[in-house]
């Protein structure tokens, strides 16, 4: 089912100083034979567990662990790219997405690389959610749906136009090797964790306090992390030298927080303002030349210098932002009572293509049900109050402003125009 194309060493161009002499394997290969391909040997079809080619350009994709998020990102996370998750304010839901990504790696048999400055990687592994088997997952999903709307399949008689709207909520993908459902209330069984291969990077262990000042303007934590990732890639052969191809899933938690030795969250004009962006650029270079996919969570709401956030987003391929309602006035707003927060897809990469699969639904909300984390389209309930009270109108106006310009990933409009 899954197919990837790999290529043998490409011919050296005359005068191109930067051509690498190693065989370059990237996942950015076209599926199928190319007419007049200069590469000798042509692409071979190799299938790696837990991956599938993209429908648009044959790009190799891995699942993020959430089938709904996969659908929004155009099928999945492309191998060789970075998914940046902007953390919500109290860091409650972004660790969930982080753990789903790692759990998907365990279930698919991929190698994991977990880096954190706060938690031991072994503890993170113990807390991964348990995968749901196909039929029990469907049962969970059905019983939740039944609680909500008893007759969702009945033909709509009055609001028949709404029948044509795309159904956002994605059910479990049954009997497939791509994308599994996870039970957030149970932990992954120990034997499953033990079968997985993983590398951990816990910052306080790897870094000593009397480190000499590095001369390349990277914070010491980032430098050590880059070296660690590079060593893992080259020793385990994820750059193509290993004939048994597997994917390396890299999870970096809370990059950019002060625990990594970076002070962009502390001051606005900091000396090491280029440290994080340089780290992201070099990480991107490492990923593009290996069979790996990376998820980074970053507390962007802490970064004082807003220009850096823009640069960071340009250097990451896919950017997803979580905004939870906890602590804000929206928590008690009756309009949002069904949801826990909003999820914004800020950017989707255009890889090997001029266009990308943008979802047309821009207003998305997430909800952590008892067992499942779901992403749905945000609906405003109808204003059924007989007395038109000011408070309900205010709430509607706020949410209308929220839905107005939308968060177009590729084209965003002026903020003062709302519909």
């Amino acid at each position, binding site marked *: 089912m899954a197919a990837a194309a790999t290529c043998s060493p490409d011919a050296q161009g005359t005068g191109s100083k930067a051509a690498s002499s190693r065989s370059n394997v990237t996942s950015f290969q076209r599926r199928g034979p190319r007419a007049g391909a200069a590469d000798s040997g042509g692409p071979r079809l190799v299938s790696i567990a837990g991956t599938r080619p993209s429908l648009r350009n044959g790009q190799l994709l891995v699942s993020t662990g959430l089938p709904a998020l996969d659908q929004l990102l155009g099928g999945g996370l492309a191998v060789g790219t970075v998914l940046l998750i902007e953390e919500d304010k109290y860091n409650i839901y972004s660790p969930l997405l982080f753990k789903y990504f790692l759990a998907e790696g365990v279930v698919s048999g991929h190698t994991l690389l977990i880096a954190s400055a706060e938690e031991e990687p072994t503890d993170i592994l113990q807390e991964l959610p348990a995968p749901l088997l196909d039929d029990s997952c469907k049962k969970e999903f059905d019983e939740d749906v039944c609680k909500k709307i008893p007759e969702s399949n009945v033909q709509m008689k009055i609001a028949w136009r709404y029948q044509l709207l795309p159904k956002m909520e994605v059910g479990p993908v049954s009997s497939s090797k791509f994308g599994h459902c996870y039970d957030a209330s149970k932990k992954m069984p120990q034997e499953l964790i033990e079968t997985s291969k993983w590398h951990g990077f816990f910052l306080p262990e790897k870094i000593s306090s009397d480190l000499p000042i590095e001369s390349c303007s990277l914070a010491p934590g980032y430098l050590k992390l880059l070296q660690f990732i590079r060593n893992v890639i080259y020793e385990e052969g994820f750059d193509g030298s290993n004939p048994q191809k597997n994917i390396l899933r890299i999870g970096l938690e809370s990059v950019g927080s002060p625990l990594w030795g970076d002070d962009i969250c502390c001051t606005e004009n900091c000396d090491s303002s280029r440290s994080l962006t340089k780290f992201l650029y070099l990480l991107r*270079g490492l990923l593009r*030349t290996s069979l790996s996919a990376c998820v980074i969570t970053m507390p962007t709401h802490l970064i004082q210098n807003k220009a850096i956030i823009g640069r960071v987003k340009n250097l990451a391929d896919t950017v997803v932002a979580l905004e939870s309602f906890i602590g804000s006035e929206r928590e008690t707003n009756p309009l949002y009572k069904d949801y826990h927060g909003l999820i914004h897809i800020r950017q989707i990469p255009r890889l090997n293509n001029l266009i990308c699969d943008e979802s047309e639904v821009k207003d998305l909300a997430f909800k952590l049900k008892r067992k499942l984390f779901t992403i749905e389209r945000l609906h405003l309930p109808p204003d059924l109050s007989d007395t038109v009270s000011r408070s309900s109108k205010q709430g509607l106006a706020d949410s209308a402003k929220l839905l107005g310009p939308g968060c177009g990933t590729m084209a965003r409009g002026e903020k003062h125009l709302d519909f």
Partner: protein
Amino acid sequence: MFPELNNLLDTAPDRPEQGTLTLLCDAKTDGSFLVHHFLSFYLRANCKVCFVALLQSFSHYNVVGQKLGVSLTAARERGQLVFLEGLRSSVDIFFQAQEDPHPLQFLREANAGDLKPLYTFVKEALTPTDSGKAVWRCPVLLVDDLSVLLSLGVGAVAVLDFVHYCRATVCGDLKGNMVALVHESRDVEDEDNDILLNGLSHQSHLILRAEGLATGFCRDVHGQLRILRRQASRSTARQERSLTYQYKIQDKNVLFFAKGMSPAVL
């Protein structure tokens, strides 16, 4: 290359302009389709191209180039294209010191001074060899993109110096062209980027600005392209013209139409 964009810019592969600096900028949208256009345009026009690609890998440009009708691997083999793949070279140079000066030497330094090695690389790539026969039409330097250099620790003034040196060599001495992409950030105050953008806008002959629509996301109209052309010679009394078109990007082509005249609306 997109034939409609050629018509709008009034150029064709058999008669490209010479000695121009084209600035591509994008605000709130992705302007990389313009880079693909110019890359395939100049390769079709039989020019020698030096492409400094800092943000994406070679195979990305190659696959899109094949959709547009040019093969980058073939061009690289016959010497028409000199490709500096920033991502791959940066990893090589950062972790191992290279003996001879590398164009991306500034990655190893704490305070990146200047981009002189990069300029030397460009100059060597585009200066015609002394074989005598002129194989290619004119040299072209393509940079994607300059804003990444700011993220890597180079100052805005150093990037402007680099552009100035390249313009003097490529556009002035060698009578070639230069095309560079700069991102524009309108809602955040990015001083370095603004310095770079203003400085380049002042020097460029042609500015292509891809913007998102003011009303937000639309499925049928992906954005708006503003073309600002400045006359190089002061003798003609023609005013600076600014034209605005809206576009929709398809799989292998980009459709351009006047504002409000999208086929989906009519």
